[in-house]
């Protein structure tokens, strides 16, 4: 039986120090060494933010001076859902994603801010789904991803597939997502969608500015990052026939959203969830029904 070679204490400590040194060095070594072909997959650093196509499909970069937000006038919304379908067209959302990124609830006046039908109402058959709008005595509440400033989805993602960018948008890296759906269960607003099957979008309907997602990844509203970073409005804001939606840069005191929030009482959903959503609701407008 071979004798195991004995090493002394001093030698052992030297080995330990050497290993620790190597580990420390590798921590600070540039990621490019380790994964030369995956440079951008490790997330945009300040200097890399200006380099070429990023894998959210926008090919644009964040402006750290901006803080994007949206304001929806609940009093004006007539529940026509053009925002829903416009978003679907713009973002190549397949039929297999249902509900869509935007969902519009029809609520009764007594429902309160959350508007959940009570168990008694549910027994009577009240739902939040509807096909014709507007109705007397109902109000309409569009919801979507709120691009929170304290997003639980970003916190729990084990691979960093969802991230909060410098201009306030919470975005997705579709080629990193492993489909674990922890972000889906972590979002208190149920804003995230999962591709349970391979999405199919007819080629002639594909918007080339937006990636078509693969099966098994999570997706959600991006505040039309491919438009808003180029100075345009999100599609839902553009198509709203009653101009109930407003979008802009909160850091700019002259922007529409900043002014609206200064002049009107606004609320956000589930304030107590401490997520700091960036979609505000106001009730300034009157319903436009003619």
């Amino acid at each position, binding site marked *: 039986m071979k004798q195991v070679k004995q090493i002394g204490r001093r030698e052992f400590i030297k080995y330990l120090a050497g290993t620790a040194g190597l580990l420390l060095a590798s921590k600070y070594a540039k990621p490019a060494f380790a994964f030369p072909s995956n440079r951008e997959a490790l997330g945009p650093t300040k200097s890399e933010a200006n380099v070429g196509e990023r894998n959210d499909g926008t090919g644009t970069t964040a402006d750290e001076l901006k803080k994007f937000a949206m304001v929806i006038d609940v009093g004006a919304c007539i529940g026509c859902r053009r925002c829903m379908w416009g978003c679907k067209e713009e973002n190549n959302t397949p039929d297999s994603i249902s509900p869509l990124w935007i969902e519009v609830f029809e609520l009764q006046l007594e429902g309160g801010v959350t508007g959940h039908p009570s168990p008694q109402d549910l027994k009577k058959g009240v739902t939040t789904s509807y096909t014709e709008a507007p109705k007397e005595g109902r109000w309409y509440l569009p919801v979507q991803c709120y691009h929170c400033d304290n997003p639980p989805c970003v916190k729990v993602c084990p691979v960093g*597939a969802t991230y909060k960018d410098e201009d306030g948008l919470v975005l997705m890296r579709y080629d990193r997502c492993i489909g674990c759906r*922890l972000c889906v269960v*972590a979002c*208190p607003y*149920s804003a995230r969608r999962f591709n349970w099957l391979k999405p199919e979008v007819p080629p002639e309907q594909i918007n080339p500015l937006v990636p078509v997602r693969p*099966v098994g990844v999570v997706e959600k509203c991006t505040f039309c990052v491919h438009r808003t970073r180029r100075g345009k409005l999100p599609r839902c804001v553009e198509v709203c026939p009653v101009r109930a939606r407003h979008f802009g840069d909160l850091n700019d005191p002259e922007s529409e959203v900043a002014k609206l929030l200064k002049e009107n009482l606004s609320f956000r959903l589930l304030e107590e969830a401490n997520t700091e959503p960036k979609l505000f609701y106001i009730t300034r407008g009157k319903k436009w029904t003619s």
Partner: protein
Amino acid sequence: MDILARRASSERATSELLRPLLRTGRGFYFLIAALLILVAWFLYAWYVQLTQGLVVTNMRTPVGAAWGGYIANFVFYVGLAHGGIAIAAAIRLLNLHKYQPVARMGEVLTIISLMMAGLSIMIDMGRPDRIFNIIIYWPERVATSSLTWDVTVIILYFTMSACYLWLTMRKDLALCLNRFPKLRFLYKILLIGYKPGEEHTINRMTWWLSIAIIFLVVMLSGGVVAWIFGLLPSRPGWFSALAGPYFLTAAISSAIAAIIVVSAILRRVFHWQEHIKTEVYSGLGTFLGILTLFYIYLIFSEQLTMNYAAPLAEFLISVKILQGEFAIIFWPMLIIGFLIPAMTLIIQGVRPKWFSLTRTVTASAFIIIAFWVKRFLIVVPSLLRPLLPFPEGSYSPSWVEWSIIAGILAMAVLFYVAFLKLFPILDLSEE
């Protein structure tokens, strides 16, 4: 007794201990055939899921449950994986040597359960081809992601338990190195660096290893697995400081119950009545009874909190479980699965005259099944009622999910049987 007779009886004892390795009956082949059929069906179901996507399950979002049977399965198997260390701790740290015979059975249960837990997760992922992203982006995410913590602790726990099993197996492998020529190569690999006097060092190593593993156990089941659920206020019913102790108690209870059932089956099949005395079962049974009773108290505490003056969301989830669509599985689980077995085990513990091994094993089997159901009830009801007024959904596993869950169980049994046929499961050196 003279030397020849003593050697003969020692030989007989060793042959008894090595019975699984020496004899292969007809029943074994039937069992293997049945298990292989189940595993083949499981692989087919998984193939269907991989080619068509997770749509073949009944999980849906946001109307419906984003997580379902697979995650319940994962939590269940992580729970079972505590068996090995529970027994090992009892033996090494509390010096309860009467449990020594079932030690390795528990450790093998641990290793196999952890593998099945990992498999359940991999099957639940939308992109299992990207599973290594969890490792690649570990440095970036370990600071904030509860799932990354979970992966870390599970890998640590698996590594340490595997080491523990390997270290404690060496002396027995050395003893039967020459008995099984076909396995000699395998044993030689595992006996790398073996020296005859190494047991002393190994014992010291495993003593410290058990302490480290116990700390990990609390961090694992009472920690990271619980925190995937308990830290999220988005799901009423999940968000609770009780999540840690809740999951930990469930884990240790289900693990002990599994050890009772598995070791009792092996004891009967291989006629090891002399080597595994009933005092093992009376001790484990009483402990299981107390733990299960404590778990019933935790269930009561949780439901009371969700009912008394709770916010609407919690209240409605509790109604779902106690009176709604899940009541039909909750109440039988509570009464038949937990309460009656727990009372049986405790009464047997208080009155040793009434002890019956069959009763203990039956009670443990019911408790294991009840724990799987409980995991399901933790994962699913809270997901069915979003905080925003989306329509409520429903969920029960599809045929693909049931096939895969059954197949994972079949695979676990298959691996266990494979271990039995390759390595000694009882300690050889204590005679």
